[in-house]
């Protein structure tokens, strides 16, 4: 088991390293020029300023040398300095990361706590109204554009009904709690500030529902299909013949066997939520990594793009690794290939 884990870990680290090369090549071989987006019009017309800018950010060095600089930095835990914010990229990520972790974790828990039971119920009561409901909800969840869903939610629950607070992480009148983790839902109770906690929780409702919609649809579908598959197996018939209750058959026999594909999907879904918040964060003015990534991409802030994509690739690869390992833990045959 340990050997299996270590070999997978090495492969994962190598993957992330190669991924940085890919993103480096893509980012540097395209025609976009950060000079035009970062310097003002007047400065961009001044050759001395442009030369100084290129020299300052190492854009005048040959490609391989720039990649080497990036790599040596990476191994020293240094992702370079963002051109736009003039701060270390790692500091930027540390500042915007917690808000994204908070939003996507809540969204993940939400989609799991609705999608899993809904999928199980839909499979057990196949072709009943709840099955149709589950299928419709998951279809709309995976088919509706996130940004449009966000608009509708804001228009209805913030604009028309005024049930939910507007965009942002907390209200403008609320003071943020002293920063410990950067996650409002943890920092506010730590400071004993329950009003802020409530305010932050309220602000999470709409964006987390919007972000969760697609994932919830996928989890419902996968759970339903896996449960139907499990329920049609012989051991279920045996369990019925033994006279077990329906509940015991569903939860004790079918569900554990249906969970494997759901674990895979769940891991992937969490990775997607963590890294797929761009649209949701943009609409809800959420101060997270998604908006930071978008800003870096449109301003061609190369150090920031390199840093954030490296982190994103690492998150993706690590979660995939965890999924594989949990597979091996759930099913011992996997590690003994």
């Amino acid at each position: 088991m340990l050997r299996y884990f270590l070999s997978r870990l090495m492969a994962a680290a190598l993957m992330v390293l190669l991924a940085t090369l890919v993103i480096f090549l893509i980012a540097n071989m395209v025609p976009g020029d950060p000079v035009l987006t970062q310097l003002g019009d007047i400065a961009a017309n001044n050759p001395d300023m442009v030369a100084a800018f290129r020299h300052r950010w190492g854009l005048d060095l040959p490609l391989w040398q720039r990649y080497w600089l990036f790599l040596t930095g990476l191994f020293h835990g240094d992702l370079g300095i963002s051109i736009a914010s003039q701060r270390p990229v790692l500091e930027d990520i540390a500042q915007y990361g917690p808000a994204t972790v908070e939003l996507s974790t809540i969204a993940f828990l939400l989609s799991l706590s609705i999608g899993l039971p809904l999928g199980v119920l839909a499979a057990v009561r196949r072709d009943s109204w709840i099955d149709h409901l589950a299928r419709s909800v998951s279809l709309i969840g995976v088919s509706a554009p996130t940004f449009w869903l966000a608009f509708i939610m804001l228009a209805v629950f913030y604009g028309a009904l005024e049930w939910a607070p507007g965009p942002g992480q907390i209200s403008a009148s609320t003071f943020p709690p002293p920063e410990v983790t950067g996650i409002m839902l943890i920092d506010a109770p730590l400071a004993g500030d329950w009003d802020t906690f409530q305010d932050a929780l309220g602000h999470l409702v709409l964006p987390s529902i919007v972000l969760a919609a697609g994932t919830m649809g996928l989890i419902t579908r996968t759970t339903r299909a896996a449960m139907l598959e499990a329920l049609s197996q012989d051991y279920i018939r045996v369990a019925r013949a033994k006279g077990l209750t329906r509940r015991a058959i569903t939860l004790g026999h079918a569900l554990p066997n249906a969970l494997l594909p759901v674990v895979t999907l769940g891991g992937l879904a969490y990775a997607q939520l963590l890294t797929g918040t761009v649209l949701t964060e943009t609409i809800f003015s959420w101060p997270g990594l998604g908006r930071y990534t978008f800003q870096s991409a449109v301003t061609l802030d190369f150090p920031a793009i390199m840093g954030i994509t490296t982190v994103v690739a690492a998150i993706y690869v690590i979660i995939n690794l965890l999924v594989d390992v949990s597979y091996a833990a759930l099913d011992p045959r996997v590690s003994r290939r």
Partner: protein
Amino acid sequence: MSATRLPNRPGAARRRWLRRYGLAALGGAVILTWGLTALLAGYVAPHPPDLVNVANRLQPPSAAYWLGTDVLGRDVFARVLFGARTSLAVGFTVVILASLFGTILGGVAAYARGWVEEALMRVTDLIFCFPPIILAMAIAAALGIGTRNTVIAMLVVWWPKFARLARSLVISQRAQEYVAAAQVIGFGSAHILLRQILPNALGPLIVLVTLDLGNAILVFAGLSFLGLGVVPPTAEWGSMVSEGRELVSQWWVATFPGLAILSVVIGFNFVGDGIRDWLDPHARRR
């Protein structure tokens, strides 16, 4: 007349067909309608899509403007109709090119085995290290704004899933006896791959292509919403939602283009599910 045959109550066959393929037919009808709309937008639209009329800005839906007008007084209905052109064209271009490229690569990898397979599949793994929208966003931003550049960016992130599927399909087909027979007869590798294996592996690929069309339209609309898609004033659904996102009381500006996206994506989902059921009777009624 076989009045005694119980299962054949009147209309039973039709009901069974409807149960099985009703949604697929509905989805097909929706796609067909949007396809015709895209082709005939110039004839159907009551107003030109780019006609600015500031005196008429932000009018609610009315007899003259069925879906109201936007900030510049342009007809939302006309723009939704014309928007079908961009969305469908981009969706089909991305998915068809990506599936061709990915299938060829995956097929070659599976058929060649050895280091060729290893190298090709590691490259696809690398693309899978990134969430598609992040990578597409970075590439689209770097290439510069425009539909063509966004399509290129999407292609870069889109082909690997087809490569993976094609590879696994070809590997499972390779083991079949008809491939050995073709080799014994003396057919070349290209002939066996294209004429023998591919037709047998086509089903799942077609299902993925259909389901993926909706996906591609969603991602493109998302990039467009972020300002990385079409160049204004081109009518496109994602950018139309973006233009109306602050207009909560003028809800019609953003709501209708979003509904258009939703209907197309659901349509492709229905058709894709229908094709899968039709090709794989075993998976039917799941």
